[in-house]
């Protein structure tokens, strides 16, 4: 019961919606400790992804579709989140090869490669108050769930829940990467916008998987 291209397209659709619904809130978070454009950056990127997906052939592999997400984000977003998320999708897609149905292990491989891509580009560690604080717990929770034999959608749900907790965990932190790192103690008490958006994106992945499976 793996996840195929219909999951990827559903994930993209849900992401477009959730990013657009949270555009103002994400920019608000970014205004507090950054430059106030994170919501707009992602919204611009995923709107472009949606346009590309409109003409997608039905037999495209998940890997190929996710690579399209990657290249579109890289070419349209700019800002820090563009290359970071773009690289996440790119490296994740490469880990999938030509597979048409993704099982739990493949999803863990996807998430791990995606997270490693963000680290490769951004050099952030856990606790630096970046999107990595959402991604790394998500990867860990997904591996644990897969090791317990959970279904693909349950693996993604575990990742999503861990990402949500991870995003919340950024609030008390001082930042060491990104614009917020210039603020020192003034960043304390504010949630990192990139961690928050990553938790939304991973939640969309789980929602889409549950809808696709059922």
């Amino acid at each position: 019961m793996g996840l195929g291209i219909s999951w990827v397209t559903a994930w993209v659709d849900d992401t477009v919606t959730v990013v657009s619904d949270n555009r103002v809130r994400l920019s608000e978070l970014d205004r507090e400790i950054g430059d106030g454009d994170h919501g707009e950056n992602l919204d611009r990127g995923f709107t472009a992804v949606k346009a590309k997906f409109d003409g997608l052939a039905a037999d495209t592999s998940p890997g190929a579709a996710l690579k399209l997400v990657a290249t579109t984000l890289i070419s349209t977003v700019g800002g820090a989140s563009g290359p970071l998320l773009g690289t996440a999708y790119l490296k994740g897609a490469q880990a999938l090869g030509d597979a048409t149905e993704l099982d739990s292990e493949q999803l863990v491989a996807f998430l791990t490669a995606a997270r490693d891509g963000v680290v490769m580009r951004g050099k952030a560690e856990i606790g630096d108050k970046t999107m990595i604080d959402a991604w790394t717990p998500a990867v860990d929770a997904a591996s644990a769930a897969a090791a317990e034999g959970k279904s693909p959608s349950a693996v993604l749900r575990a990742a999503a829940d861990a990402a949500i907790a991870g995003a919340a965990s950024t609030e008390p932190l001082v930042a060491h990467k990104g614009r917020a790192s210039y603020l020192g103690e003034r960043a304390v008490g504010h949630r990192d916008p990139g961690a928050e958006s990553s938790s939304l994106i991973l939640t969309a992945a789980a929602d889409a998987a549950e809808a696709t499976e059922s």
Partner: protein
Amino acid sequence: MTRLWNDPQRFVDEMIDGFALANAGYVRKVRGGVTRSTRSPEPGPSLVIGGGSGHYPAFAGLVGPGLAHGAAMGNLFASPSTTQIESVIRASDRGDGVLLSYGNYAGDVLNFTAAQEAVRADGIDCRTVLVTDDIFSAPPDARDTRRGIAGDLTVFKIAGAAAEEGRSLDEVERVARQGNERTRSMGVAFTGCTLPGADEPLFSVPEGRMAVGLGIHGEPGIDETDIPTAEGLAELFVEHLLSPGEIPDGVTIDGARCVPILNGLGSVKSEELFVVYRSLALLLGERGVTLVDPQVGEFCTSFDMAGASLTLLWVDDELEGLWTAAADTPAFRRGS
């Protein structure tokens, strides 16, 4: 507050169109930004600069003979994307390598670095010198993590002049790095700026107060005080920029030569800047600094933010020569 636009989504595209139409003698629009409209016949290294839009004349206003060869132009206050930068690099390359120079921001570093990797894979010798002039963004011992603000201009000008002289990429990179070593800035602001179509300013400063050490994208300041007099602001600038940790290696204040750039961020006007400059000139003169070729005006703005920054470029003979060399761009012109 921004008022004149058609569709906020198309703002930057239309701005680039208008800029290129108004400056057709200088620039040519390419995907992701602009390059010089006239290619010089001689080969040599190219200087590609760039960053988010909304800082005019940084960056596109600085493309032309004696300064940059191309500028990657991102969305408002957002780094250009990797693809955009790559496109501008390729359009600006003259076959002898490319120096990338831009302010140190996570988004720009990520995108410029990815673009650099991509063109290097095709054999273009592409290097980077980050601008890290903002003394309020990290302590002196972490200077290379500081962000870049109006000091961009000194580094770009020095690198552009060296490239114009026909120096090698190694040399252009070396002087750019030396220019950045010798450049320090700090900024203050009184109001935030509101992007086209936005309901609220990116940040706000209470009436009568001044944010100290803020970034040029509305990143909050480090400190806040009452608005000082013009003289008080000059004293604040001098106190911080002449503090011992900020004097570059090899410089002794008394007897030093220094280019001051008093930069308006958008709504602080020249008249006010001249009043501040008067005090700056007195204060720096008292400390034994000889001011070289002062610049007072708008060099790196933040839309219509009300604020100002002071940049000091501590020159040696080589840097002074490069700084004062001729340049002819849409927004920065000087005879030789």
